[in-house]
């Protein structure tokens, strides 16, 4: 059940990122202008940032949909969402009235857009969860018990290389 929920989160998040990228590709110049209106970046870097954002959305979306490097892609997606939330919030708090630039169209930046990004963070965090890592038996909670496991292995006289990685049950 939990695996299915995480699978749905991964596919939905990946599809959302791919859709966001696909909606920007036909008019990258407008997306660059939307990005400039946030007044966060030096004007000389805006176009590069716009191109990179779309490229990273494509790569992260593909990784999430295919499951290849899904946890890393979820980390990228979550980081991007945090940046989006920060950028939108600062613009709203500064009273800058602008288009969101989230997807194509004329969607204005509102606190509803911020809330949507916060909601999208949840599936990203679910996919990032260590329990989804095939190596999580070896390193539960990001390796919190790894030294004890290594101590047991050292006591039994077998090295990591002899045991292989990620497949040994203990």
């Amino acid at each position, binding site marked *: 059940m939990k695996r299915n929920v995480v699978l749905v989160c991964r596919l939905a998040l990946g599809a959302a990122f791919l859709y966001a990228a696909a909606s920007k590709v036909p008019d990258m110049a407008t997306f660059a202008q939307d990005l400039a209106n946030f007044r966060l970046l030096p004007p000389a870097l805006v176009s590069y940032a716009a191109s*990179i954002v779309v490229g990273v959305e494509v790569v992260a979306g593909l990784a999430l949909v295919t499951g290849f490097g899904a946890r890393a892609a979820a980390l990228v997606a979550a980081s991007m969402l945090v940046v989006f939330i920060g950028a939108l919030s600062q613009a709203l708090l500064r009273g800058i009235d602008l288009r969101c630039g989230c997807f194509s169209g004329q969607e204005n930046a509102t606190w509803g857009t911020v809330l949507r990004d916060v909601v999208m963070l949840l599936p990203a965090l679910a996919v990032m969860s260590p329990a989804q890592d095939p190596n999580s038996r070896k*390193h539960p909670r990001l*390796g919190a018990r790894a030294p004890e496991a290594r101590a047991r292995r050292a006591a039994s006289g077998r090295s990591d290389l002899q045991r292989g990685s990620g497949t040994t049950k203990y």
Partner: protein
Amino acid sequence: MTSPPPLGGQPRYDGGVRILLHALSLCAAGAVLGLAGNRLTPRPAPLGVPVVAAAEAPGAMCQLPGGRVPPVPRLSVEEATPLCVACSALFVDARSAAEYQAGHISGAVHLPPGAPAEPVLWRLGVYKTVIVYDRNPSCALADEVAKMLLERGAQDVRVLTGAWPAWTAAGAPGSSGPCAVCGEHAPRGAP
């Protein structure tokens, strides 16, 4: 034969570091893909060309001789239109009464330089933002009224870039007639 690593010899959070490295790899791949693919899009982002915010674009600003800094912060038509539609800002028309009656921003009050400011002042507590405009891209009249409002206690006063011509050119909301709240009346025979 490789000997087993000493206890604590490996990084404690190697799983996290591995994912972080994968994430950085994805970002690098995305950056290369985005920068290389940009030129293949129908309307590519202009790499190497500075992109400024719409409100700061040269065509959107009031043109001041000698590149002087505008005395009052500016607001573009693009930024001001939603505020007009949502009635979340007070628009002040600094042109003549005849020009105001012929056409003005919907909901704007008429306050030319030198006129009594009382019809506007009581509204300052209702609206957070006041946007002043006139007829001329130099924004001289609007600047004068905006400075007066700032001196009378208004906190957030802006001048509309491009003035009334830019507003009409953008097809933003407008109406005509006298300023009823200012105590003005239509001339006899006017509709």
